[in-house]
């Protein structure tokens, strides 16, 4: 049997702030993170609410000790560096310089947040010099490469883009590489910055709620876009024990399946989500009754919550473990959703608490189950399940267990 893969380091930034305390506090107080737009320059700014991180690009640059202004780093890269530098508060960077090491990032639109503002100047003759710095940032690997360069790392690198399940795939790939012996450690995660491109994309699909989202509610009206970055350090259990590292959780199960149903909508009966969760549990050698908390994908779109709710009901029955969507705290952070919600799941297990599903009022007619509407404390959680489902039918479920 292959060695177990454990999580020994965490770095995160989202609309709730940076680091663990910034997240746990509002979650305990049921204080959502969705608010009016301050930084994104969209004509829709007055009408929408978002999971926007309350820092300008200059604020982020200062936080990580970079020059402000046009420094060539997109917001996506700045968020990635903010999360990575937080992870490195607890992890000696020399560990990541030891071969063999993998750095696996995930992203959906690269430096779009900058490129959408300068694209016409970029195409025109005589592009302004400050814009030339960003000219080739419209790809998903730009933040991965910049983080690697910033810290002088030479890892095995990968960037994944499977829409909203992207960074769950990062964790899964890192675990597989460690189990195969290809690498000893891996930093896995993802990042996405808000862009008008993404906001308008989901708006054109009529998937955006102009009020804070209401996951698993009969009267839900769509999602709120958010931005975030998160990374976890994964390593083999013997490697973690050998260096005396504090083990936060064990990644005991994972599964990646595809709906093979529709380009953007999940199969309405939840077949895809069911298969993914089932396979992840099987890999962890767990029964549904062993799971103490489910962090649902729960985007609050009509389609997702119906499909996912039905899948949970099919696998766990009408008395499932407490489940919630944490999207009202952070918005839907797309490529970062998988990693930040994996982190929330591990914290829920560590703190023995169920994170509330904010804004839930009305039971969904199609379901016999409902999410946990408020904080539950002192609850026994030995194993957690975290779901991420994306466009293209890309589904990933992860199972974390107590060390």
């Amino acid at each position, binding site marked *: 049997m292959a060695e177990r893969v454990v999580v020994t380091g965490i770095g995160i930034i989202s609309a709730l702030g940076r680091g663990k305390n910034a997240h746990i506090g509002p979650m305990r107080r049921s204080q959502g993170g969705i608010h009016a737009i301050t930084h994104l320059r969209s*004509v829709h700014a007055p009408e929408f609410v978002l999971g926007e991180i309350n820092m300008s690009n200059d604020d982020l640059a200062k936080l990580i000790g970079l020059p402000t202004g046009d420094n060539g780093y997109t917001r996506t890269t700045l968020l990635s560096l903010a999360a990575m530098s937080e992870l490195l508060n607890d992890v000696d960077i020399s560990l990541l310089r030891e071969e063999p090491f993998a750095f696996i990032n995930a992203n959906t639109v690269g430096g779009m947040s900058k490129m959408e503002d300068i694209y016409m100047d970029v195409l025109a003759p005589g592009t302004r010099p400050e814009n030339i710095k960003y000219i080739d940032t419209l790809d998903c690997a730009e933040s991965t490469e910049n983080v690697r360069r910033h810290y002088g790392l030479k890892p095995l*690198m*990968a960037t*994944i883009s*499977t829409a909203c399940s992207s960074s769950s795939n990062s964790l899964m790939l890192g675990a597989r590489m460690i189990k195969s012996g290809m690498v000893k450690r891996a930093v896995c995660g993802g990042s996405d910055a808000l862009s008008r491109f993404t906001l308008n994309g989901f708006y054109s699909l009529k998937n955006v709620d102009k009020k804070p989202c209401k996951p698993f509610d009969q009267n839900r009206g769509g999602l709120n876009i958010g931005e975030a970055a998160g990374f976890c350090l994964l390593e083999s259990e013997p490697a973690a024990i050998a260096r005396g590292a504090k083990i936060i959780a064990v990644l005991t199960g994972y599964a990646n*399946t595809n709906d093979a149903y529709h*380009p953007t909508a999940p199969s309405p009966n939840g077949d895809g989500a069911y298969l993914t969760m089932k396979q992840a549990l099987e890999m962890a050698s767990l029964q549904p009754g062993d799971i103490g908390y489910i962090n649902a994908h729960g985007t609050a779109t009509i389609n997702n919550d119906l499909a996912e709710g039905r899948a949970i009901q099919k696998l766990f029955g009408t008395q499932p473990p407490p489940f919630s969507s944490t999207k009202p705290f952070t918005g839907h952070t797309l490529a970062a959703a998988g990693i930040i919600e994996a982190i929330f799941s591990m914290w829920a297990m560590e703190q023995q608490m169920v994170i509330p599903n904010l804004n839930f009022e009305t039971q969904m007619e199609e379901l016999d189950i409902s999410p946990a509407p408020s904080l539950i404390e002192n609850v026994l959680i030995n194993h957690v399940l975290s779901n991420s489902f994306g466009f293209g039918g890309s589904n990933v479920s992860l199972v974390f267990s107590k060390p």
Partner: protein
Amino acid sequence: MTQPLYIISACTISPQHTYDEEHFLDPAMTADDGQLYVIDPDYTRYISPVAIRRMSRMLKRGITAGMKCLEDAGVTTPDAIIIGTARGSVTDMENFMKDMIKMEEQALNPTSFIQSTYNSVNGWIAMMTKCTAYNQTYVHRGFSLELSLLDAQLLLSEPGDKKYLLTGGFDELTSEYFIIREKIDYYKKDIPPSPELLAHYDTPGTIAGEGAHFFTVSNDPGKAVCAIHNIAMLQQPSAKELLDATADVLSQNRLKIEDIDILVCGMNGDSRNRFLIDPLIANCAASTTIVSFKQLSGEYDTASGFGLWLTNYICKHNYVPPA
């Protein structure tokens, strides 16, 4: 990682006659403006008339190359779909972004937004083959296609009964993307006709291209033409690091560089890469045939797929085409 990837079938849509392989280099297709665009095949063969109307060319191209690759392998439903693309459907991303700017974020059509998602080709092939298994999209610049193959190696070495995997990669050239890369000196200033690209190795820059390359790979050597035994990816290596890595890969297979009959090499005519390429070639035996391909494919992030297709072609026909 030494799990061999036996290549059961290969399908490439490129600027050359590769999709209709029997006409390869008959004639060789060329470009004088430094932009090699693909020869579009009949996309209605695998895609229904209803679906095809709204599809962008990258989506049609990716689906068609992938579906033909599986058909050639006799595989109806693969055991995984793993694809690499550095830029996905560039046209869709450009169109949605420009519409958004011009129409000031009002009344936008979501079609190009959906298709600009990097895993849209993966999703379509999964739907068309009813493949609910593992599905992955790598988007890491020049490593995108290699990561697809590396993941396939990993997957076939894991417990389970997976046997036939669809791997590959694609990227698209657009006139706007050409302008962007031109501004960062990616291309040659004095553009030679594409067949003469490598005769201009003394100046910086290359020429542009695009393509879609798919490979059905298996752990079963039965129907294979050739196999990939090792994959090594290096970050901005020095010449010595490249030579050491080459020697290491060969020694893992009990080979020396003198044993190599053919080196398929992605030299792209950019003088800035010569410090890597020249020592490698100098290190080869006089009897080694050096095969270049970027004068046929153009340069782009997943162009190595053309090289892999060509390698497979050479093994299949036991013949090195005069390029």
